[in-house]
Every structure is written in structure tokens, then in C-alpha cells.
């Protein structure tokens, strides 16, 4: 049987030749993402702004405009209605009531009653009620968790490699998270707790490729002490290219399936990680590696650390 090779043997692509162009593009994309996120804002779910979310599956296809008019006529504040997963499933979002948290559940209860009387056979799939206090905490905790994870991983890379690698990891992570945020701001996909889980996963997994490439760079720095840094980076990237592509491919197969036929509730999570993996693959080549050049890593930079490294046991 002839085996499939997504990447041919002996590739010799000059990745680093495009590093400045890639940097400019990445920079533009990152700035654009952040600007977009700040100005357009994220479509934050009730988890982070408080309020209520009612998901309903109707027995027959319904007239959305009619439902919208009915909900609006109940004067529950700025309500929004969206299709969710299928033509008969909708989510109705209600804002936090003015009367404080104690009155929070009344709105959803009234909507549920209205649906039960006006639409025969409709099923309420789920109701989420989050008070302002809890949503503020969830938002703060999520931001804290993502920041902590980024710093924690950067520190670990610093500890295992050198400080330049730690900085590279941190910049790569910042890039990946910013781009994914930009995607959510652009598509207006709802950001809920699951999506935060996805961001934390991206922080862990988008660095996967970076770690593998850094490991190879370190190995080659030790092996080829006379080689200039740019060819050495190119060599390392080419040597690991097959692995980078194959692994990203397997992860994308699994996530793609989850996105396409998995439960609707976790679509946001699946697409966020899918995207994070794609961005992470790119940034491991065009951000993690070139950063080392700008931070002045040279083939003889770590000669002193060499004895320490070679004495290090590698088994887990």
C-alpha cells in the first residue's frame, strides 16, 4: 500500500523569506481584530451580561415576525429572537429586568406561559437566568482565567527553553486569542461560557505546534552551531512541517465533524477551537519562529545552557 504523504519528503521552503510581510499582515489583522472587538463589541450571552435565555422547539415551523410581535407586546424590554440550529428551534433573549435580580425570573415565566398557550406542542428546551452579579463575576473570572493561562504557559516555556522563547510564546498566544476574538466580533456569534472554555483550549492547543517547532529549533541550535539563524529556522520549520500539517489535519477532522453534526449548543465552542487550531498553525510558523530573530537569538546564544540541557532527563 502506498502511504499518503500530505507533505513531500525533503521540503525546503524558504519560510523566513516572507517573515516581514507575514508580520505586517499579522499585525494588521491583530490590530483590526482588536479594533473590531472594541468598537463593534462581542455578542455577549446572558452568561456575561445577565438576563434570560429561553430556547424553544416548536411543533411546526412558525412565523418569526408574529412571535417577535407577541414577545414585544409583553413589554419585557429589549428582547431578541434568533433561529438556533434548526428552522423550528429559536432562542429568545430577554434583558435583565429593571426591578433588580429578585424579579429576574418573571419575564421568562411569562414568555413560557405565552408560548404554552399560543403554540401547541412547543417544547421549552432550556431556560438560563443569570443575575447581574453572577454575570459580572463570570466575566471577570473568564478574563482572569484566560490571562492566567497565557502567562502560565509563557512562564513554562521560558523555564523549559530560554526567555526569548517565552516571549515568543506569549506573543503567539496574544495573536491567536486576538484573532479569534475578532472572528467572534465579526460574525456576531454569541460568546457564552463554552466559548471561554474554547479560548482556554486554544491557549493550550495553539501552542502545541509552537512547542514542537521550538523543540526542534533548540535541537538544531545545538547540532549546527555554525549555521546562521535564518537558514536554521527554515530548516527546523521544514523538518517539522509534515508533523505540523498532519496533526492539524487530524484535529481539524475531529473538530470539523463536531461542528457539522455535533450538538448545536456547543457549535460556538467547536468553531472557536477549529479556528484557533488554524490560526495557531499559522502563527507557530510566522510568529513564534521570527520572534526569535528579532529577540536576537543566535546559534551561539545558549552555549552556556548547553551542559545543563544535555544532562536533563527526557523521560516523563
Amino acid at each position: 500500500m502506498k502511504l499518503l504523504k500530505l507533505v513531500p519528503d525533503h521540503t525546503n521552503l524558504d519560510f523566513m523569506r516572507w517573515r516581514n510581510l507575514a508580520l505586517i499582515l499579522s499585525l494588521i489583522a491583530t490590530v483590526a481584530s482588536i479594533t473590531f472587538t472594541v468598537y463593534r463589541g462581542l455578542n455577549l450571552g446572558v452568561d456575561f451580561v445577565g438576563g434570560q435565555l429561553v430556547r424553544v422547539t416548536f411543533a411546526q415551523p412558525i412565523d418569526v415576525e408574529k412571535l417577535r410581535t407577541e414577545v414585544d407586546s409583553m413589554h419585557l424590554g429589549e428582547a431578541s429572537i434568533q433561529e438556533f440550529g434548526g428552522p423550528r428551534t429559536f432562542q429568545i433573549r430577554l434583558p435583565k429586568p429593571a426591578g433588580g435580580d429578585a424579579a429576574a425570573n418573571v419575564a421568562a415565566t411569562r414568555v413560557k406561559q405565552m408560548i404554552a398557550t399560543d403554540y401547541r406542542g412547543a417544547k421549552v428546551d432550556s431556560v438560563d437566568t443569570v443575575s447581574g452579579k453572577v454575570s459580572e463575576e463570570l466575566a471577570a473570572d473568564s478574563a482572569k482565567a484566560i490571562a492566567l493561562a497565557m502567562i502560565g504557559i509563557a512562564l513554562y516555556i521560558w523555564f523549559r527553553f530560554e526567555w526569548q522563547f517565552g516571549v515568543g510564546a506569549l506573543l503567539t498566544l496574544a495573536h491567536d486569542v486576538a484573532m479569534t476574538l475578532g472572528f467572534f466580533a465579526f460574525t456576531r456569534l454569541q460568546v457564552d461560557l463554552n466559548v471561554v472554555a474554547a479560548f482556554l483550549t486554544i491557549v493550550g492547543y495553539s501552542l502545541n505546534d509552537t512547542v514542537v517547532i521550538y523543540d526542534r529549533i533548540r535541537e538544531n541550535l545545538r547540532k549546527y552551531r555554525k549555521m546562521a539563524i535564518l537558514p536554521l529556522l527554515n530548516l527546523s520549520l521544514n523538518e517539522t512541517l509534515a508533523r505540523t500539517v498532519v496533526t492539524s489535519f487530524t484535529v481539524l477532522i475531529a473538530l470539523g465533524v463536531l461542528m457539522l453534526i455535533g450538538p448545536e449548543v456547543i457549535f460556538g465552542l467547536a468553531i472557536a477551537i477549529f479556528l484557533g487550531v488554524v490560526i495557531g498553525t499559522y502563527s507557530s510558523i510566522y510568529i513564534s519562529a521570527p520572534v526569535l530573530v528579532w529577540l536576537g537569538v543566535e546559534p551561539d546564544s545558549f552555549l552556556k545552557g548547553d551542559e545543563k540541557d544535555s544532562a536533563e532527563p527526557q523521560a516523563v
Partner: protein
Amino acid sequence: MLEFPRWKVWLIGLVIAAGVLLSIPSLLAGTPYASAWPKWLPQYKISLGLDLAGGSHLLLEADAGDAQKQRLQGMEDSVATELRRDPRIDIGDISTANGRLSFLVRNPTQVDAAVERMRTLTRPVALTGNRDWDVQVVDSTRVVLTPTPTGTAQALKDAMGVARDVVRRRIDPGGTKEITVITEGGNRILVQVPGVEDPEALKKLIGQTARLEFKLVDLSANPQDVQAGRAPPGSQVLPMADGSGAMAVKRRVMVSGDQLTDAKQSFDQDGRPDIDITFNTAGARRFGRVTQENVNKPFAIILDDKILSAPNINEPILGGRAQISGSFTVQSAHDLAVSLASGKLPVKLNVIEERTVGPDLGKDSIHKGVIASLVGTLGVIIFMLVTYGRFGVYANIALVVNAFLILGIMAMFNATLTLPGIAGFILTIGAAVDANVLINERIREEIRRGRRLHDAVDTGYREAMRAIFDANVTHVISAGIMAYFGSGPVRGFAVVLLIGVLTSVFTAVYFTRMLVALWIRRTRPRALHI
């Protein structure tokens, strides 16, 4: 690396067998084959999160203002009881304003004695060296009791413990349901009840403090004063529960709900719902004595500072049994009976987060999740097979073993599988083969460099190990932080990722190395097709 001692082979085999055995009950759950699983084999099961099983999740928070109020009231009762004892000290102008309890000692020569007796009511707070109340004298005859911060904190902690038990008893009087009631972060209680689709009934049960008190009606009060909210000394004005005005009642509690042994919903002579209550011995004696002394006077039945009714005492009630009437429906009488029987909540609880998932959505999620997992795994397996041939087969065996191990470990710890957890499972399947990809690509590389077969395989595993280790540590960091900060479903996701990292290193590295070693030893191949 080709020396693979027999005991290691056995050990790895044993771990895998254990994983498969542990995971089967969870896989069979809900299918007709579940009963076919022999009883003498492990019965551990993964529990399903509310987002998959359906049910209600409520997060309750203690109302700090109410906690303080209840504590002051409790202290007021203790003070009144203490000073009424011999030698009696007469006091007046009791006030609980500004979060402090203060009163006037009528006879100035008794001030010191009053302070002394107040001190006996305070208690040291464990390990802090502080007492729970500060006792001071102001303007020479006014005694002021101020709760200390440590005392308040301790009281809240105690109250939360009691509240947790009361909530559990109210939701599940029989103690048979699989519900979760735990305290969180000092002033919160998390309640999870599977299978409940409408949390309204739950919230009604929890929403009531159910502090029941019997107090005499103050007949001396001037109706105009009562309307204006002013009560004579020693009395207070309380609103009627049905909103029909207010009434002045004596501050002193005749009997309180703490002295009940039972409460049941029942009907009065006219067929209206009411509640039958039974006092304990001390309560019955006291109730009997007070009713004996006050025949033909009305007394008020007060629930959470609202007067339910104020019947007349026609004759002494000596048997320790009484009926509470009010404008009840059968349901509200039943709920109140359950609440009374389970004891009062030492603090009012507010619902600050509520999530309900219907059972059908959960079933649909499981169904779609399982299909996606199977299709995703199959996709990865085919891809690995066409990319690495024999080594792909090894990676695939490892992948399947990995799936069983994850489920087995989750079952062993009775971990909760949530919807995001299913995503974590699929992600782990996709990412677990990364270790094999790293190893196999390295072996390919070493062969291209002209290394001999043994050497190439050996170097491949050794050199890839470093990157595998570092990459997995980054996963552990992010998943660990997620498990720490995340709530419910997200934590379920993190747990699957964490377990998946551990098992995938075992299966993808050690297990496949064993398979490769055994194969090379058995067939002594000349060349590698990889």
C-alpha cells in the same frame, strides 16, 4: 527500546483491561443490555451533567441584610429571656436600629449586673480570640451590643451550614433523590436537581424563610397609631399577610417554630386547607401555659414577619397540637408545611442564577454527541491508516484504548460528563494522535537520514518524547486553570481534557512502543514501510 520486559507487557495489558472493564457500565447505561452486565464486575458509572440529563440548577445567595436582621432578633430574644430571669432586670426602649441591639436599664444600679449578664450571652469565636458581640454602656444606662466582624462571619458560616441542610430537607424530604446541595464561596448554596423541568416549585420551597412565631395581639394599641406604624412600648406593628392592613403584637414570642416536631397540610371544619402542627414537649408546655393565661384574647400567627391570622383563644390549648389557618391553597399549605417541618432558614436566600435544561434537549445532545464522536474517531482512524500504514494501525489501536481509558477513569472517579465534556472527548481523540504523528514523522526522518531500522525507531521515540512532554504540559496548564475557574459544564470539559492528556501519553507513547517492540522482535523486519 526493544527490550520490553514481560512484566511491563503484563502491566500495560492489565491497565488497559481495567480501563475497558470500568468503562463498559457507562457505555451500557440506558441500553437494553445494561442488565446483562454481571454483578461481580465493576459497576462504576459516569454521571451525566444537568445539560445532558436535564434538570434544574439554582445558585442561591444569602441575603446579608436579612442575616444581620435575624441575628439581631435572635439576640433580642436571648436578652429578653436572660434578663427576665431572677434577679430580674427591667429594661425598656429596645432598639435594633443601625445593626446594633440596644436597650435602657430602668434601674441605674443594675447596669453593671446587666452588662455582666450580657457578657455571658456572648461567645468566643473559634481560634480568633475575639468574642461574637461587643458589649458597651453609653450614656450610663444604655447597654449596646454590637456584632463583631469575626462574630458576623462565623454566624454566617454557621447559618450557611444549617441553611444547606434545611434546603436539602425541603427539596427532598424523603432523602431519596439524587440531588446536589453544596455551599460555595462562603455565602452561596448550589442546588442541582436532575429531572426537574420547572424550577418554580423548587424556588417556592426555598424562597420562604419559614420563621413561624406565635405572639399575643396588643389590644391596648391605638388603631390610629397602628395605622401610622407606631406601637406601644414592648410591642411592634406587623403587616397582615393578605395585605389587609396591620396589627400591633407583643414583641415577646409566645412560642416559635423551632419548637415544632411536625407540620402537615390538612383541612379545617369548613374544608379550607390549613396546616396541622405538633409542638415538642417544651413547646407544648409553654403554649399550654400562655393560652391558659390568655383565654378570650387573640394571638397572632406570624410567618416571616407577616401575620397569617389572629384567632381568638377560646380555651387553653394543652395537647401540643394546633392548626394554622390563613388564606391558603392546598399547594401553598402543603409547601408551608414542608418548610415548617424542615425548620426555618437561618438566612433568606435569593436566587442569583438559574439554569434549566429539558430532558429532550439533553437526549438530543447525547445522541448527536455520540454520533459526532464516532464519526470523528473513524475519520481520524482512516487518515492515520492511509498516512502511516502499520504504524497507523498501532496509533489507531492506541486511540481506541485511549477512549476506553478516559471513560474508565471518569467512571472510577464518578466524574460528571457534560456537553462541553463531549467536545473535550472529541478534541482529545483528534489531539491524542499528535504524539504518534510526532514519533512517526521522526522515524521517517531518521530513516531518510540513513539510520538503520532499530536505531531509527529508537531515536524517533526518544527525540519525540521531549516535544510531547512540553506540549502536554501546556495543555495541563490551560485545562487546570479551566477546572479551577470554570463552573459546571466548563469544568466537565476541563476534566476530560486533563484525563485525556494523561491517558494519551500512556497509550500513544508507552503502549504503541510496546506494540512496535513486540512486532520487531517477532518478525525482525528488514525495512520499515512508514
